[in-house]
């Protein structure tokens, strides 16, 4: 089907462009690292208190990093007005969004995975046994962040003060993802881990709701 082949082609373009320069990945990864380090100055390191705050701090770091990451999502298309040529070329504009949100999810996940060893180190939390479920939680959460981010950055890219506007629009919207994901992560990283399937399902519902909204209203986001 044309939507899938267009999405695949565009996804290839997004990945190729990013992996050629790797500027987004490296800056996002370093940013999360910096935030994690700075957060650890706010709590007494090595204590139980630090362990309790750690999951929330991890997700906060991911959220802040993502609000930086999405700045370039449409900026890259604005330099040479490639958004217009894409719109002319694809049969369904949703493929443009689909490709971007899949690419963004992959980039976010990649930076999160790179961060995990540092996270385990700084907050003294063993992750290895809980890795599969942790990765699932990260995936579902990052997907939600990407879907909302792809939609909202399309809006902020067309307004003034877009660097400040994007986090302002995006972060309140992502409250459900932050709250539930940190809770689930926290429970997972306890000494006796509990897997909150309800929480994971909730974030998945968030993902579905926003994906549907993007599908229904996406073409209007690209209008001129």
């Amino acid at each position: 089907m044309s939507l899938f082949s267009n999405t695949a082609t565009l996804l290839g373009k997004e990945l190729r462009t990013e992996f050629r320069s790797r500027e987004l990945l490296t800056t996002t990864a370093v940013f999360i690292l910096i935030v994690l380090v700075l957060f650890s100055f706010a709590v007494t390191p090595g204590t139980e208190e630090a362990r309790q705050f750690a999951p929330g701090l991890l997700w906060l770091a991911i959220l802040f990093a993502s609000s930086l990451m999405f700045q370039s999502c449409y900026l890259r298309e604005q330099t040479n007005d490639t958004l217009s040529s894409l719109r002319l070329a694809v049969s369904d504009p949703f493929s443009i969004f689909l490709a971007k949100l899949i690419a963004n999810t992959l980039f976010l996940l990649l930076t999160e995975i790179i961060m995990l060893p540092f996270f385990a180190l700084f907050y003294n939390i063993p992750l290895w046994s809980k890795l599969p479920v942790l990765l699932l939680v990260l995936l579902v959460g990052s997907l939600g962040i990407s879907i909302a981010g792809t939609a909202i950055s399309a809006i902020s890219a067309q307004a003034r003060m877009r660097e400040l506007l994007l986090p302002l629009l995006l972060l309140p919207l992502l409250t459900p993802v932050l709250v539930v994901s940190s809770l689930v992560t926290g429970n997972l990283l306890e000494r006796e881990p509990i897997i909150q399937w309800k929480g994971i399902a909730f974030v998945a519902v968030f993902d579905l709701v926003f994906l549907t909204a993007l599908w229904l209203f996406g073409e209007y986001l690209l209008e001129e």
Partner: protein
Amino acid sequence: MTPPRVPPTGLRFENIDKRYGGLFALRRVSFAIAPGECVVLAGRNGSGKTTLLRVAAQIVKPTAGKLTFPGASVDSSTNGRPGYVAHTTMVYDELTAEENLLLFAKLQNVESPAARAEELLREVGLIERRDSLVRTFSRGMRQRIAIARALIHRPSVLLFDEPATGLDPLGISWLAKTLGEVNRAGCTVVMSLHGESEISALATRAVQLDAGSIVADTQSGASLHSILTFGSA
């Protein structure tokens, strides 16, 4: 120059309005372009030429009015869409010339995308630079990759916004030759221009816009020369 994929197509604008806030960029624009014509849109800066071309390219939706392509095949797949060349290249700086053309070929379901991309690179004279990033291209080369992108799906209509901008005399000659070939191969060409040049000489018709409305048309007797010089001669 390979002929268009579909039979020659014309354009029909019916009462096109485009409003931005209180200002009309286009006001009740109505005219038709026959298949195979080479039309020049002339007019001062801000007269609405770019907006009209973007409406024709279907990138901008008119506030009112209808745009049709008489003679176009009924299926609305992108192969029926016009080729559009604007001030920017509309290709990716961080990809090579070949990668860019492959991208647009695949997106538009062009047969044998790799072969077609190579064919076009040869036609616009960029085959030697196929593996160079577009970022490294000169103004003239950028113009050529933009044209290649616009023609990749063998459109039956080519829209060109101020093609001669930034080109040296050699570039202008090449462009005039290329556009002539494209037009002779059956593609309807609509381009916005300032003044008279080798390129304007290709025109079979000219239409002058002022403040968003059509004020002169060679079809109704105005001279090509006077339109191109905004009637000041």
